[in-house]
């Protein structure tokens, strides 16, 4: 199946993949070739995909994933507001960012969702980066 990951800054991945695991809003899910047409909202996390060369890990932000059947097989389109290859993540900077985001959240007395949202987004992205880097490094 043909996997395309696109961000507002351009294509991140365009590859033939054998399997992929994505962070859905309701939990992680896997997609294998021959999957039925499907659409899901993604939350920040790690998207992994397996190709002939091995498994790769991507940190991704909010987005959507669509599986569609086209004439020459399946295609999976992933649209995310940001994304980064696990091997490109600056792990220390991401960990510092995660700690800073946690501290900011802990300090905040705010109860309003609108005020907490940017802090939570910041934390979620940093956590995704750390995890993607960690899982890339473990292999």
């Amino acid at each position, binding site marked *: 199946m043909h996997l395309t990951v696109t961000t507002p800054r351009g*294509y991140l991945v365009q590859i033939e993949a054998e399997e992929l695991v994505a962070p859905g*809003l309701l939990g992680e899910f896997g997609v294998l070739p021959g999957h039925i*047409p*499907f*659409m899901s*909202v993604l939350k920040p996390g790690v998207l992994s995909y397996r190709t002939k060369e091995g498994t790769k890990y991507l940190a991704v932000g909010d987005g959507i994933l669509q599986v569609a*059947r086209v004439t020459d097989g399946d295609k999976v389109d992933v*649209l995310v507001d940001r994304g980064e290859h696990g091997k490109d993540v600056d792990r220390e900077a991401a960990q510092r960012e995660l700690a800073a985001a946690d501290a900011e959240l802990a300090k905040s007395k705010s109860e309003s969702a609108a005020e907490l949202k940017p802090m939570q987004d910041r934390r979620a992205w940093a956590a995704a980066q750390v995890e993607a880097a960690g899982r890339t490094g473990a292999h």
Partner: protein
Amino acid sequence: MPSLKAVRLRIASVKSTQKITSAMKMVAAAKLRRSQDAVVAARPYAQTMADITAELARATDAEAHPLLDARGAGRRIALVVMTSDRGLCGGFNSNLCRMAQRHAEEKKRTGEIDEARYEVVGRKGRDYFRRRKLNMTRDLPSAAADTALARAKELAAAVTEEFLSCTVDAVLLVYNQFKSVGSQRPVIEPLLPIAAPTTATDGDGSEFLYEPGKDQILDYVLTLYIETQLHRALLESIASEFGARMTAMENATKNAKEMIDRLTLQYNRARQSSITKELMEIVGGAEALKG
């Protein structure tokens, strides 16, 4: 024939204008490269977003979501006109504004719409519609490549709200599409209601499975679609502005050069004729003394 001194002053003034225009050309060229990269990078995302939205709209009844509701083809429309804050970029802004105005007036004349309002980005557009006392309901400053996303979100929230509250029945985007450095094309594109394509795409039309639910997906995708399209249009407009300015300044520099050449020729002629005149006088004086 103007005096020697007048011509010399003229040459000096044209030369300093030329310096300014060629500097502005360089600045526009440098900024163009950056904004061109941004618009080229943003296109695949916007295109995939549009494809997914089209797919979704086709698999859904128009009644399923208010943003898909084409109520009576739109009696009141809003035109979102994207212009720049600064001038000196040729017909970039005036062509676009004129096109928006003509489009609205044409539709009104044929009775397709009752009312048009203009929502303007950029100071030049604001000035245009204000001077003509047209129905301008919103004006925002123009954006740069890095502030375009925030501006797009602001605009998206505003037009979505107007559409959902039935203040307007349709929203159109009017902006300069970036074709190449030398060519920008003003275009009008429908934004709301989101229309399902009538032609079949490469999908086999089978029903999708949605997670979490179809309604949440629709809400999420349609909102994101509007933001993405506005963002892309803003980036196109920014790149076009620099392209247009670069071309305009290049022409201005060329014109200045031609003018300098012509004035120099005129200056040399005037100088030669004054020398000739002086010589004649001297020769005439000498002849008179001889006699």
